[in-house]
Structures are given as C-alpha cells and as structure tokens.
C-alpha cells in the first residue's frame, strides 16, 4: 500500500494544513519512501496478537467530581491572538 499526491492533498486538508504546490510535491515523495519502509511490518504474522495502545495496566482513572479553583478568564485569554469581552475571537463563520 502506498500514497499518491491526491491522497496527501486530501490528508493535508483533513489535518487543516495548507501546503504550497512545491511542499505537496516534496512531501508526497518523502511520505511514499517512509510508508514503503513502514510496510516492512507486513512481514510479520500478527493476527492473534493483542494491540498495545498504552503500556501501563491502568485504565479509567477517575477523580472526585468536586469543585476546584480554575483559571481566571483574563489569564485564560492572555495568550489569545484575538479576544473581546471575555471571548476568543475567530473569523465569522456564518454570514
């Protein structure tokens, strides 16, 4: 299995990354090489192997649902590129 330019273009769109035409060209070649290398995994017989998504035998870590101090609005917004009246500002979505 491999990757062509159209697929890279589509995945870049899914990733919300605008690529210049020369970037698309370069990335397509490089990703193809990387995926060809990764295809080495196909050599292994893994049908009956359990996947490991996480190395520790812990799951569903929960904490008490009790109120705690949270970030003040001004501090939470301090790094925003654009803000107004306690909100993050983004380009208009609906005309």
């Amino acid at each position, binding site marked *: 299995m491999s990757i062509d330019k159209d697929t890279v273009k589509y995945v870049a769109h899914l990733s919300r990354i605008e690529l210049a035409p020369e970037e698309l060209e370069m990335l397509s070649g490089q990703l193809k090489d990387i995926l060809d290398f990764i295809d080495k995994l196909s050599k292994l017989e893994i049908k009956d192997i359990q996947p490991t998504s996480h190395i*520790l035998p*812990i799951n569903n870590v929960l904490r008490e649902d009790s109120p705690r101090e949270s970030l003040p609005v001004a501090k*939470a917004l301090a790094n925003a590129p654009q803000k107004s009246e306690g909100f993050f500002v983004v380009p208009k979505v609906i005309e």
Partner: protein
Amino acid sequence: MNKPDAKSNLNIMTACELIKRLGSKEITSSQILSALQAKIKETDAKVKAYVRVANPVDNPKTQKPGVSGALSDIPIAIKDNICTDGLNTECCSKILEGFKPPYDATVIEKLKAAGAIILETKTNMDEFAFGSSTENSCFGPTRNPWGLECVPGGSSGGSAAAVAADEAIMALGSDTGGSIRQPASFCGVVGLKPTYGRVSRYGLIAFASSLDQIGPLTKDTRDSALLMNVISGYDPKDSTSVNKEVPDYTKALTNDIKGLKIGIPKEYFIEGIDPEVKAIVVDAVEKLKSLGASCQEVSLPHTEYAVPVYYIVATAEASSNLARFDGVQYGYRAEGVKEKLQSLINMYNNTRGKGFGEEAKRRIILGTFALSHGYYDAYYLKALKVRTLIKQDFDKVFSQFDCIVAPTAPTVAFRIGEKINDPLKMYLSDIYTISANLAGIPAISVPCGFAKNGLPVGLQVLAKPFGEEMLFRVAHTYEQNTPWHLEKPKVS
C-alpha cells in the same frame, strides 16, 4: 577534571559539588549564576544551546523565596516544551510564538519546591520534539560543543549541549523516542529516560502521550539520581502517572555490579552501526565484565520493527495532540489571503500551513493518514500489535537478566545538514533508543569513550519498568571506573 578555583569556575561543577560548597558557605548562589552567565556569554553565540533571551540567568523571580530543599540555589535549564508560569514556552515553533503558560508544569513546581532556580530562557529543541538533531528549530540549529560543525543530537539538543559546554549545571529534557539519550550520547553527558509514568507529564506540551517522559541531562550519574529524586512521583494531574513510592535514587550509586546478569542484544550490533562505535561499546562491555558482571548475548528479535512502529504510533498521537494549535487560543495566527480571511477553516489552514515547520507538517500528515478511514487497520492497528511483540521481547530478557547494555546511537554526532533532507535516514538514528519508549521501560546513556575524530560515544543501559535503581547502579559503577565523564570540550 580541572579543579575549579574557589569562585570563577563554578559553572563546570556538578550540582552535588556545588551543594557541598553552598552548605559550607564557601560560595553563594549569585556566584554560581555569575559563573554561568560569563560562560554563556563566552560560548553560547557559537553553541546556541539557549533560545530567545540574551541574559538568561538574570531573573530573580524564577526561584521561590525562602524555600530550601534538595536543590537549593542550583540553577537548572529547561527544554522549551516544559511549561513555566509566565516564561515563554514555544516548543521552538513559530506556531507557539509568544506563548507564556499560565501555570507551571508539575516538574517545575517540584523543582521550585526543592529550591532550584529556573533559568528564564529555555533550551533549544527540534520543533515540538520532532527530530534527532535540533536542526528543526524555528530559532536555528544548536551546535555540538565537541565539534561545532556537528549536530548535538535531538530533540533535547539544547539541554545536552548546555550541560556539555558547562553553560548549565543540569537540565531537563523530554524523551519520546530517544530525545534525551541520543543527544546525551552525542554530547558526552548523562541522560535518563524514566519509566513511563514515573515522572508527571502535566505541563509537558504533548508530542506522543503514550511515549513521552521528562528526564534529566546531567554531568554525572550522581546528579541524575539527585534530580530524579526531585522530579519523580505520582501526580493526580497526570492520569498516566503511577502511584508508586519513589526510592532515594542516590542510594543506588553503590559502585558494585558483582554478580549482575547483563544481556547484550545481538540485534544492536549488526547492520548500520559504525564500526568505531561498535568497538568502543564492546570495550565498555568488557569493562563491565572486569567489574564483576556476567555479560551474555541475548536476542530482541523484533528490534528491526521498532522504527516503523514508532513512526506510526508517534505520528498518529502527534497528529491528534497538535490539533490544538489552530490560531485561536494561543500563539500565532496567520493573516492569510484577503478573500480567504472570511472563513474559519481557511484561517486554520493558513495558520497551520505557515506556523508549523516542515518536519511537523510531515509528521502530522503521516499520523493523520495512519488514523484515517481505510488505512487504520493496515497501519495504526498493525503498529500497536507489533508494539506488543517489542514489549514481549523485553519481558522475556528481563525475566532472566538484571539489565540490558547496548549502544545509545549507531554513530557519533553527524554533520549539520547531513540528514536534514532525508527524513528516513534521520529517523534511523533513533534505532537503538525507540524500543524503550515503545515498551515503557527506563534507560540511561552514559559516556563510554571517544571516536578518533574526538566526538563522544554513549553507552545505554535499559532495565525493566521502575528499574531506575538498576540503571543508576550499573551506570554509576561504569562511570566511577572510567575517565570519560570527566572530559570537557574546548569550544572554539
């Protein structure tokens, strides 16, 4: 080592040596800071271990007043991906330009509570820790103090170079696939990746959440143990941190490895290893034998699959973690093309297209591909299954052996620019370090010699989960019986 005269060369000393002198009131913390400042002024224009701030140590606000603890008055350099309250933390990426975290990472809180002084500037790194050479930084590359035309390794190259050049006493880095150990090896310092879950990741800007760990880069194993004592432990703010008692790691520095059973993985000495590196590591194994350990060849049969598994798992997790950088909550927002500005999606696309560097884009796109419909089973699920096999390889060896000893990297530091246009070649420089992250086990790199061109070589020790004491025991014994950690580079 050059014996420092009372005040001027304090920057070349270890934290433990400084603590002794601070305790006897022979020196003060401002004398340590002045010595560091002078050294940074002298060499950092060449090494470029630090980013942004020209005068990194002139910041009294970075120490909690009146606190005394295990690291009182010891300055520490921090990698640019660990959040420090009010101090720029940008992952050396344009997309996080100007970001000042509103809180401290748990490791920073712990350091402050131990009396340490956090340097205001941060150490250079590959953008978002994506790389093995510190060339992928929006601030430009760091240079190896042992050879300025060479890379310091990466991604914690700034931390390793700062410690090696005596521009720092000790430093924190992060390790997702070797990002502490490989630069430690390239720069001739000690670097430790703790067991997954040993050190809190809260406030570490996430790259691959199932692999990332924060760890120390230091001048010797004693400082490494001291720093691990401070930063380890359970943190309710990190659901993957493990509630397990933290031993006093300095007690493991016993200078005795008699009777230990050490496995030497044959797969780490074949294809791709530089013959000079191989010879130096084989000598180190002989040294361990002469110190009373029994060393025997073992097999980790799935070693060759570690790099492909890693570049699926790590990029998949990264593509998800980096979705938060979209020009809304923090950092850079692209101005964009005029007619496109109207649309939110175009703002995202432009911001991320212009804000991320080449390697970040490559990894996000690769990770998104591996997780996308129609490819998930063929790539991501398959990689997770092979990850199981890699972990089982280690379980099997550790059921019979106390630890594993291997090279840290297949080569010494390579030249700046040598691999930057060939991502696959760059990825293969992590071939011996990646497995420890996939298996979640701890591993340390200690200096074990020099190649003919004067560049350092690192010896890697790996142990079972929460086996840090074993790492310290073996690494310290080796270190105390060899001269390598005492060598200093001449930056010129």
